[in-house]
């Protein structure tokens, strides 16, 4: 056991000392922030503006179709499908003659095709206009309608999870975000660190150092030392990311102007209830930051992070052993590695697809089974956990999933060790899956 520690140390330090490791550690959080800010910026800035000419034989749409940032409706005269482009419109909308209860087609012709969400927006706007028209006909005045529209927007759904006697504010959007992000992170790291194990084993085999080492230590110790060492690199990476993100947030908050910081503090002290006078004083940005902090505080972060680390490690150990087995039978040809890796990468990709489904419906039987089967449980369980423990995921399910994962990686490690032991010393021979299975299930 002393020797396995020496191996772990080498595997760990040789990777952590590497410049690439430091680069990835600091660049990835920056890249993530950049990606979020960038995509937000472009979704705001980079949208097209559509000027739509409306042909309205009924004459009541004119004040009803509301302009938005992306959509400008105009009602020019003498316009038809042949000349709307020449007159500077991007689209033309042809309204049918309106008969109150008949369903009618509204035709949109465009110079360039329009995205799905914009089309949806237009048809929603048309339907709203028709609804307003009907309501008006029924005797409701325009001013009444306007005030109804305005006050209706104030309503906001606040969901609570009942947990025995106490109930906790829940936020489905946040849960989904966390579930999605942690599933994706586990998916990516499984690939990165899994292939790192594969390449490490292949290096030892193709460099012919394997036999030198296994004459000093057992092949099992060499394999396990490598897996644990690389797993520790992964953990280090995550911890550094957490530290970097927390530091960046802290720095970001401290860079806020002093008055906003004061207001934020007041909001925090009063629990968001400053009274009308105070609320009026607080600036929009302070309120936004407070709201964000409040939403984030509805999640049990220590639980999420703790379970994330568990499922990362469990999933990594489960798959890393398989990657090591494949690495041990590969010869010089990297293409062998590609084809042998395929049966391992398939379940990872498949699990990721399941995760995306489960995130929408965390309580289906499929969600349950996928979160207890170790092939997919690291990703799928993380997606479900973000919805809440023990409300969405009861304790027994969590325990079952953890136990099967631990059992799973013990099993894969045990089987892989037997393949590894034979494969690592075998040169110049192409090994098939059938042979590997034979080695794995051979006795002794």
């Amino acid at each position: 056991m002393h020797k396995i520690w020496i191996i772990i140390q080498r595997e760990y330090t040789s990777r952590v000392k590497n410049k690439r490791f430091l680069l990835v550690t600091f660049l990835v959080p920056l890249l993530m922030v950049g990606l979020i800010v960038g995509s937000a910026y472009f979704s705001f800035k980079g949208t097209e503006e559509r000027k739509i000419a409306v042909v309205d034989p009924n004459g009541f749409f004119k004040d009803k179709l509301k302009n938005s940032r992306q959509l400008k409706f105009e009602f020019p005269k003498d316009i038809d499908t042949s000349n709307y482009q020449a007159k500077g419109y991007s689209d033309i909308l042809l309204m049918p003659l309106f008969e109150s209860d008949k369903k009618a087609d509204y035709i949109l012709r465009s110079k360039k095709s329009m995205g799905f969400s914009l089309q949806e927006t237009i048809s929603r706007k048309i339907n709203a206009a028709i609804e307003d028209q009907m309501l008006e006909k029924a005797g409701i005045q325009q001013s009444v309608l306007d005030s109804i529209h305005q006050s209706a927007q104030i309503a906001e759904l606040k969901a609570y999870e009942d947990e025995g006697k106490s109930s906790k504010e829940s936020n489905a959007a946040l849960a989904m975000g966390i579930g999605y992000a942690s599933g994706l992170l586990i998916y990516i790291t499984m690939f990165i660190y899994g292939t790192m194990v594969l390449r490490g084993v292949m290096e030892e085999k193709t460099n012919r150092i394997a036999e030198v080492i296994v004459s000093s230590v057992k092949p099992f110790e060499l394999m396990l030392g490598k897996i644990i060492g690389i797993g520790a690199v992964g953990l280090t990476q995550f911890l550094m990311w957490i530290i970097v993100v927390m530091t960046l947030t802290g720095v970001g908050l401290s860079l806020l102007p002093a008055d906003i910081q004061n207001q934020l503090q007041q909001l925090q002290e009063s629990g968001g209830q400053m009274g009308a006078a105070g609320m009026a004083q607080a600036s929009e940005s302070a309120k936004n930051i407070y709201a964000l902090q409040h939403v984030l505080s509805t999640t049990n972060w220590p639980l999420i992070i703790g379970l994330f680390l568990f499922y990362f490690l469990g999933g990594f150990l489960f798959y890393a052993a398989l990657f090591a087995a494949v690495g041990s039978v590969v010869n010089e040809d990297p293409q062998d590695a590609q084809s042998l890796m395929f049966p391992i990468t398939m379940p990872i990709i498949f699990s990721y697809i399941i995760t995306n489904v489960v995130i929408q419906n965390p309580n289906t039987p499929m969600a349950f089974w996928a979160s207890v089967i170790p092939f997919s449980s690291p990703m799928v369980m993380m997606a479900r956990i973000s919805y809440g423990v023990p409300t969405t995921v009861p304790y027994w399910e969590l325990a079952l999933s953890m136990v099967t994962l631990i059992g799973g990686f013990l099993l894969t490690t045990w089987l892989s060790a037997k393949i590894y032991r034979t494969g690592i010393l075998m040169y110049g021979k192409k090994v098939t899956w059938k042979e590997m299975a034979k080695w794995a299930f051979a006795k002794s």
Partner: protein
Amino acid sequence: MEPLLSLSHLVKHYATQKAVDDISFDIQKGSIFGLLGPNGAGKTTLLRMITGIFYPDGGTIQLDGKHFDPLLDIREIGYMPEERGLYKKMKIGEQALYLAQLRGLSKADAMEKIKYWFEKFEMQSWWNKKVEDLSKGMSQKLQFVITVLHEPKLIILDEPFSGLDPLNANLIKDEIYNLAKKGSTIIFSTHRMEQVEEICDHIVLVNLGKKILDGTVADIKQQFKEYIFAIETNHPEMIKDNALFSIIDKADKNPNKVLVKLSHAVASNEVLKYLIEQQIPIISYNEVLPSLNDIFIQLVEDTHAKARAFQNIK
């Protein structure tokens, strides 16, 4: 004298072939032992069992009079496999330290020994270099140092001279003699017979997983001698076939040398007497013993050794 290593009835079967099929022999303390055999004879499998990499399917291994326990005895063995390599990106000093620690040396001990050997082989300046910067010969030297660093009782060298120039080969050869003199036992596995003849005291030849020859180099040569003598004279034309011997080869590199094979039960002095009586002026007269190479080829040819090398485990 008690043997250092004693193998009895070792067996190792792979799926479709008997890689090692009931092999027994002893290796004396302080000897240089040659393990010979064609490719695929089972040498590497045998060595892997002696180093504890493989467990034998049958038979026993005794090291220094005790049952061989791979976990405990690994410290006593230094193994330089035929397929040997190093981490290309790792610094040479760190690499030597790492491998020595895996052998069971403490860090301080390992450091001290590495310094000693690096000085001896003038490798001090290599410490911070990487293996990928070394030539093949240099990395062989490093391999050798790593193998003997922990002063093992038993040193196993599989083709230790491959890729070495004569200068470095001699350096290592001298070191092998040195280590043997100091009491280490050396197993030397190769199919280069001239090296075996030069270095080894005792050899074992394996073929098709079985031991086919076991003895000292001198004994084996005697055992396989064919009563061939070389006669050097200024008048080779005067030597004719007769009842005592028959000429087997006149055209030696030296035109004055004639090789003769003695007839059955003829003593070599009778030939000498005959030559003197014939008044043939003799410059030299000596027995020609077969080289190990000849013996090797004679024994291994006609078996299916070649076919076996291509036989695969299905």
